[in-house]
C-alpha cells in the first residue's frame, strides 16, 4: 500500500496489515475491526480518529494482545517482530517496555490500594530485573518530576485517590515512559480531563516526543486535538480505515464524506459558524453492518452501487479514501 502523506523511506517501527478482530457474542460474531492497515514511523505521531464503536481502541488493544476472547487475525509487526499470536511471555517483554499504552480513565487503570511510587517501581522492575529497589524509587521520583508533578518525592507515596484527574493522568504517562519505550499508544488520554488540563497534557506529550524520539499513536474522537499534535491521521468508521493521510492534507481537502461530515459538525471557537448536523442517522455497529459501504446509509452522496460492494482505500487528492464514488475504484464484494 502506498504510504499516505509520507515521503521518507525509513522503515516503519510498527507495521499493521489487514488486522481483523471479531468478538463472539450471544447474537453471533461481531466484527469490530475489519481489515485495518497502517504504519507508524520512528518519532512520528499518528492519530486514529473515530466515534464510539468505530473499532479504534479495539485495534490497538488487539495489537498489544490485551483482548481476551476475541479472534484476532492479520499482522502487526514491531521492528519486524510479529505481535499477533506471539507467546504471552515474549509479548510481555515488549509491552510496557518497547511499546506502552495509556488509557482514557486513569482512575480505573491505576491500582487504588498501591501508592503511585510502588506502581511505578513495579513497572520498571518487571522489565529491568537489575534495577534495585532504591534505584527504582529514585527513578520514580525523577519520572514524576519529569511529568511535572510538584513535590515528586512526597507525591511518590500518595495513593491514586489523593490526586486530581490531571495528576493521575500524569502518573499514567510517567509509568508508560518509565522503560523508555519507542512507541506510546495513548487511548483518549485527555477525554476525561478539563480543557486547561488537556492543554497541559498535550504539551507534556509533545515535550516527551521531542526529548525521547517517541512515536505516538493517539486514539481519539477529537479532531481538534489531532490538528496540533499529530503528523498523520487514519479515520475509522465501522471497523475500517475510511481515510488515511497527512494532517495537512486531510484537514485542507478531506475526501471521504464521513471525514467531511465530521469536520463540518465540529464546533469551533476561532470562527463563528453555524454547526451543521451533517451526518444523519446513527453509526453502524459491528452487529448491524449494512451491505457494501458501511457509511452509505448515512451518506449524502450514496449511489445504488454503494450498497453492492465495500470500497477499498485508493488515492484521491492527497489522501487515501475508501469511497468508490470518489476514487472510481470498484470495491470488494
Amino acid at each position, binding site marked *: 500500500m502506498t504510504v499516505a502523506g509520507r515521503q521518507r523511506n525509513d522503515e516503519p517501527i510498527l507495521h499493521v496489515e489487514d488486522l481483523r478482530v471479531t468478538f463472539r457474542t450471544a447474537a453471533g460474531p461481531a466484527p469490530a475491526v475489519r481489515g485495518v492497515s497502517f504504519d507508524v514511523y520512528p518519532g512520528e505521531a499518528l492519530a486514529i480518529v473515530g466515534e464510539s464503536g468505530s473499532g479504534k481502541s479495539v485495534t490497538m488493544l488487539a495489537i498489544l494482545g490485551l483482548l481476551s476472547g476475541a479472534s484476532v487475525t492479520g499482522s502487526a509487526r514491531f521492528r519486524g517482530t510479529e505481535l499477533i499470536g506471539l507467546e504471552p511471555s515474549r509479548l510481555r517483554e515488549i509491552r510496557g517496555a518497547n511499546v506502552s499504552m495509556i488509557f482514557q480513565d486513569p482512575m480505573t487503570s491505576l491500582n487504588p490500594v498501591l501508592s503511585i511510587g510502588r506502581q511505578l517501581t513495579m513497572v520498571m522492575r518487571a522489565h529491568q530485573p537489575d534495577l534495585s529497589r532504591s534505584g527504582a524509587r529514585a527513578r520514580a521520583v525523577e519520572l514524576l518530576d519529569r511529568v511535572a508533578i510538584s513535590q515528586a518525592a512526597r507525591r511518590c507515596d500518595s495513593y491514586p485517590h489523593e490526586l486530581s484527574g490531571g495528576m493521575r493522568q500524569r502518573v499514567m504517562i510517567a509509568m508508560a515512559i518509565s522503560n523508555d519505550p519507542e512507541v506510546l499508544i495513548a487511548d483518549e488520554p485527555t477525554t476525561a480531563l478539563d*480543557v*486547561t488540563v488537556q*492543554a497541559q497534557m498535550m504539551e507534556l506529550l509533545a515535550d516527551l516526543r521531542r526529548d525521547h524520539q517517541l512515536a505516538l499513536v493517539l486514539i481519539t474522537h477529537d479532531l481538534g486535538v489531532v490538528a496540533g499534535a499529530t503528523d498523520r491521521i487514519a479515520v475509522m468508521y465501522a471497523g475500517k480505515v475510511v481515510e488515511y493521510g497527512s494532517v495537512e492534507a486531510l484537514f485542507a481537502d478531506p475526501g471521504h464524506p464521513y471525514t467531511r461530515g465530521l469536520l463540518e459538525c465540529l*464546533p469551533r471557537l476561532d470562527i463563528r459558524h453555524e454547526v451543521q*448536523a*451533517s451526518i444523519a442517522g446513527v453509526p453502524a455497529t459491528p452487529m448491524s453492518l449494512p451491505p457494501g459501504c458501511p457509511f452509505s446509509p448515512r451518506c449524502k452522496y450514496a449511489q445504488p452501487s454503494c450498497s453492492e460492494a465495500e470500497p477499498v482505500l485508493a488515492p484521491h487528492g492527497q489522501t487515501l479514501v475508501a469511497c468508490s464514488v470518489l476514487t472510481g475504484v470498484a470495491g470488494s464484494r
Partner: protein
Amino acid sequence: MSDVPVLQVRNLVKEFRVRERGRASVVHAVSGVSFDVMPGETLALVGESGCGKSTTGRCIVRLTEPTSGEVRFRGTDLLQLKHAELRKARRHLQIVFQDPQASLHPRLTVRQLLSEPLEVHHEPADVVGQRVEELLGLVQLRPEHLDRYPHEFSGGQRQRVGIARALAISPSMLVLDEPVSALDVSIQAEIMRLLIDLRERLGLSYLFIAHDLAVVRQLADRVAVMYLGKIVETGFADDVYGNPQHPYTRALLSAVPVPDPIVERRRQRIVLAGELPSPIDPPSGCRFRTRCWRATDRCAEEEPLLIGRNRTATGHHVACHFPGDDATPTTAQPTTEQAPADQPTAEQRLV
C-alpha cells in the same frame, strides 16, 4: 426581548458540610453568584470541573437546597416557596441532565416517561395522550419509538427523550446541564441543532451549563465564566469570546484546540500551571491568583468585584484587578509557559 429578566439569581451561595480526615469542614461550592436571564435569551454558564456551575443549576431548580441567596423566577423567589408552590412554579422551569441513561427510568417506556410529568401536573388523560405525540414530533422521534425502553435507543435519541420530558409541561425556561457532553461529535451537532430549533419555535430561555466553550459558542447570547465558585467574567458572547478580559477566560479560550493544523501550529497557547485549589480552603482575595501570571500582592488582599466595563446590566463584567491584554508585563512572575509580553492579543490568538 422584554426588559424584565425571566430569571434573576442574586448572591447564590451553596456550602456543603463535609468531614475531611475527621475534621468538619465546609466546601465552598458556589460563593455569591449573581446573574440575569432575559426572556428568549440563552445564558451559558461555563467553567471546568469543580467550578460550581452544575451546583448553581441544581440550586436554581432547588434539586440542591442553596445555603443562601435569591432565585427570582418570573418575579417569585423560588427559595421562599413551600413544596406545593414550588412544584407549581417549576412548571415553567425544567432541567435537562447530562446523562439521559442515568436520568431516565430504565423500566418505563418513552410513552410513560413523557406522560409522567403531565400526570404529576394533573393533566386529563386525553390531553396527555395528545401531548405525548406532539412532544415526540417536537424532538423528531417517530411514533414507533413510544413503546420502547431507554436502553433501546442510542445516546442521541435518549437525550431527545430527556429534552421531550423536560418540555412536556410547556416550560418557558430550561436549565440544560451539559446536555451534549456525553455524545459523539456528529450526534452532538444534531442535538445542538434541535436545541436551537426548539428555542426559536417555543420562545424558550436557556441556562446552558457546559465545560465546552466551542459548543457553547453556537447558541449562547451571553456567557458567564465560573472559577472556583465565582463568576469571573460575563458579557455578550461576542465580547467574551472576541475580547476576553479575565486571565482565566483567556487561558480557558486559549486551551481549546482549533481543528486546523495550520492555525494550531502557529498560535501560542496560555498553558496554566498548577492545579485547581481546594474549594474547602479557597485562596484569599482573587481565587484565581495562585495560577495567575499577573497576580500581585493586591490580588491576595483584596477580592476583585465583578465590575462592568460599561454601565448596562448585561454588559461586559470582569472580576480582576488587572484585566485585559498583557501589553505591559506586571511585576509578578509569570507562571505560564511564555513571558506575558510574548502573548498574542486575543485577535491574533483567535485568528
